[in-house]
């Protein structure tokens, strides 16, 4: 029998040092179905995390190189599909920048009104889902009810609730409907009252506040170096909003605030979105004031905009114009452009290269939430396992946009 090692104290014996690896997603509802996190846990604390994206990659940018410039709209619809109108407008503006054309005022205000409605729908979805993922199901249902009201307006205007494909280079597919202003004013009032009610439900709730406040903090410097933009960056106190900093499409004529946060935690990101819903409502009301009831929503340029149908059927000029735009695609002069707008999640950029033909040579999308998601690992490292859900929810990762 071997002698016992009496010099060795039992308390000094080390336990097996294997860390616990935990995989969450991609098929996990809190990961919105498209992101995978492999976490190294020490107890419930996340020591290290590997965030993997790309599960929803569909090759949109490559597909854009096949059809005409106009046929890109359905693809950008499917990027941030919670606010497709903002993508439509962003892409149209990029093409118009290359063409050197400016849409009529009626179109610009119409785009702003529809775009801000889309932004409200985006923020309602994000904040609603955040609350739901923390167990508050009622606010989610109410906010989705409000989002449905907005989508009803969208359906009335564009014919589609989700993927509108309503933007056109040089204008919009159709002018505003007769009851547009009236419907939107009523809808915005109702949406704002829902937002008020949701605030009453959530902001007095200790559990909700404890799970958001001082969780997932990121400094302004880190956020900027990661390329963050949009509500997530503004929550860190940086007042960068493309609509204010680099106004496009007549945003400079509007009076609105850029809400910012202070600590850059999950709660700030939640509150910035709530505040932006109110700002958007104000912008929409101003846009409706400015929107005239008559006039064209398309530029007067036969090389860009399709002719009236009756002209196509009865005159050779109309037929040729229609033929050229539909079969060959409208021609964008050779060159490249970077055009950026404020999307639901931040700076939505389009880098386009044209070789002068009717087909895009390259369409590169700068998806705001791709860069925001890149910061997920940073904000949840060192946090508790249970913090992953509010942190991820507050970033508003939209799979279609992040992975393209």
């Amino acid at each position: 029998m071997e002698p016992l090692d009496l010099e060795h104290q039992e308390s000094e014996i080390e336990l097996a040092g294997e860390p616990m690896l935990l995989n969450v997603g991609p098929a996990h509802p809190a990961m919105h179905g498209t992101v995978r996190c492999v976490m190294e846990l020490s107890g419930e604390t996340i020591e290290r995390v590997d965030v993997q994206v790309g599960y929803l990659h569909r090759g949109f940018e490559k597909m854009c190189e096949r059809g005409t410039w106009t046929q890109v709209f359905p693809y950008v619809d499917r990027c941030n599909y919670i606010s497709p109108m903002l993508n439509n407008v962003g892409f149209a503006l990029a093409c118009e920048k290359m063409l050197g054309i400016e849409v009529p005022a009626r179109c610009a205000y119409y785009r702003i009104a529809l775009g801000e409605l889309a932004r409200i729908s985006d923020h309602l979805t994000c904040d609603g889902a955040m609350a739901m993922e923390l167990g508050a199901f009622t606010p989610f249902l109410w906010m989705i009810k409000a989002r449905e009201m907005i989508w009803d307006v969208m359906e009335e205007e564009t014919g589609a609730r989700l993927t509108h494909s309503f933007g056109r280079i040089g204008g919009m597919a159709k002018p505003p409907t007769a009851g547009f202003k009236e419907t939107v004013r009523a809808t915005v009032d109702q949406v704002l009252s829902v937002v008020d009610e949701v605030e009453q439900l959530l902001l007095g709730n200790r559990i909700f506040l404890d799970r958001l406040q001082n969780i997932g903090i990121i400094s302004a410097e880190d956020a900027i170096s990661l390329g963050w933009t949009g509500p997530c960056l503004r929550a860190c106190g940086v007042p960068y909003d493309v609509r204010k900093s680099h106004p496009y499409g007549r945003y400079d004529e509007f009076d609105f605030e850029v809400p910012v946060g202070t600590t850059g935690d999950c709660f700030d990101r939640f509150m910035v979105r709530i505040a932006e819903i109110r700002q958007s409502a104000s912008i929409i009301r101003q846009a409706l004031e400015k929107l005239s009831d008559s006039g064209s929503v398309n530029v007067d340029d036969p090389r860009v905009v399709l002719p009236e149908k009756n002209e196509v059927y009865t005159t050779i000029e109309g037929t040729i114009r229609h033929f050229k735009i539909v079969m060959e695609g409208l021609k964008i002069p050779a060159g490249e452009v970077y055009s950026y707008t404020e999307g639901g999640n931040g700076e939505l950029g389009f880098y386009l290269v044209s070789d002068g033909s009717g087909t895009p040579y390259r369409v590169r999308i700068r998806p705001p939430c791709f860069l925001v998601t890149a910061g997920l690992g940073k904000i949840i490292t060192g946090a508790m396992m249970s913090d992953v859900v509010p942190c991820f929810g507050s970033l508003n990762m939209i799979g279609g946009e992040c992975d393209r």
Partner: protein
Amino acid sequence: MPSFKLDDREIPFEKGDTIIRAAQRAGIDIPHYCWHPGLSVAANCRMCLVEVLPPPGRPALQLNVLNYDAQSGQYISQTKPKLQPACQQAVAEGMEVKSDSSEHVRRARSSVQELLLLNHPVDCPICDQAGECRLQDYWLEHQHDAKKMTDEPVHKPKAVVFGPTIVYDAERCIVCTRCVRFCEEVAKDPVLSVRERGNLNEIVLAPGRQLDHGYTLMTEYVCPVGALTAVDFRFKARVWFLRSARTVCQGCATGCNAYLDYDPRVDRVHRHRPRENAQVNGYWMCDEGMLDYQRVHANRVLTASVGGQASVLTSALDSAALLLKDCPPQKLAIVLSAQHSNEDNFALLKLGRDDLKVSQLFFGGKAPGTADDVLRNADKNPNTAGVKKLAPTARPLAELKTLVETGAITHALVLGADAPTPDLVQMLGKLKGLVVLAVEKGPLASVASVLLPASSWAESEGTFVNARGLSQQSDSAIKPQGDSRPAWKLIAALAVRMGLAVDWRKLDQLEQSMRKAVGAGAGQTTGASAGGASAGGAQ
């Protein structure tokens, strides 16, 4: 080299150049309908008008015009420079010409285009020219405004049959007279002329005549709009779905450069049209050659057969190898084909002459046909010169007859299914082994012991040497039809089955050894691309 100024750009020119010709050589396109580099100048469409600045110290030639002033609602008397047709105006040293940079030129182009479309029918959806029509292109580039005229347009005859190949639509016609000039100047058969004046004028046939000379399809080819349409292509395909391959015409030994237009979605060839090459065919092709593409889809051998029974390609190759293995080399004849490319013939030579040591070499091909002094050659084979260069000792196929009769030859490996006489076909049918690699169902195909389906020229790239010794490459357009494979590939497979070492499994390996064997001329493209790229623009 002397030069002149076009829109502030120095353009060199040669003696006798017109503005449009010098500009085109410099890569600048001055819009035009009636001008064609291969035809005489008519200067009747007025689309190519440019502003020629007067020499220093001389007044410009001015016209008095009345311009409507929208502000005052009055017509104001003004002057504008007299514009000159760029297709007719000869260039002189130091001349200054304004084209795109002149407001007067831009207005003139827009107005000419508007006039040409004034009575044009709304036909784009049913017009074969749509997609490659000058009226469409120039509307977008130079006019782009809507119709102003509210009157009923003038109606003229539609779908007039001009002959067996061409249908004319007078409403679409802009009377540029390109077709009239082509018949007179190139085809030397002035069968077309113009009737009436103004917006009533139209192209008519000479009394008692039809458009039936050897180059009728060229009238459709030179037509810048959809007025003349080819019966063969009418309503068959929409041009924006077609892709083009750079080919060499297989109709005769001239070897005209051509584009083969095919639909890649269904692998079907639809049209053969000229590709500009000053060394060979200029801008033109004959009807025979343009319609020769039909052979790609008609009367093809698409499956292998052994003893007249359809067979799987691999087992047919096995049977062929067995047949040929049994035969002593002195009893085997190798028949090359002037219908096939150098690559196919060289592969057969490698197998027969080099590996099997066969000395009895023959070559077949199509029978001679009509010739003229424009393009057509009496030799209806595209590669007679190539075969003669590869195998100078090869004899015409007809001389095989006596050898078969005496029993000196018992087996034959034949490329192509053509045979000069029916009794030779009968004789060859009695051989112990007749292996035929054929594209079409020719006479030899029906008597072959083993028939192997070879790909046509449209399905495989190859080199062809024309009557003047110019070696030109023809690209492939569509995928091999049915079970067919390029003949050189079938021969390689056959060689492998006969237990021979084959080091040419790929086309470039084959071409490399061909170049080594017969020098540069056999497998190299010369002249085929000269000026070819601008063929579309020269229309």
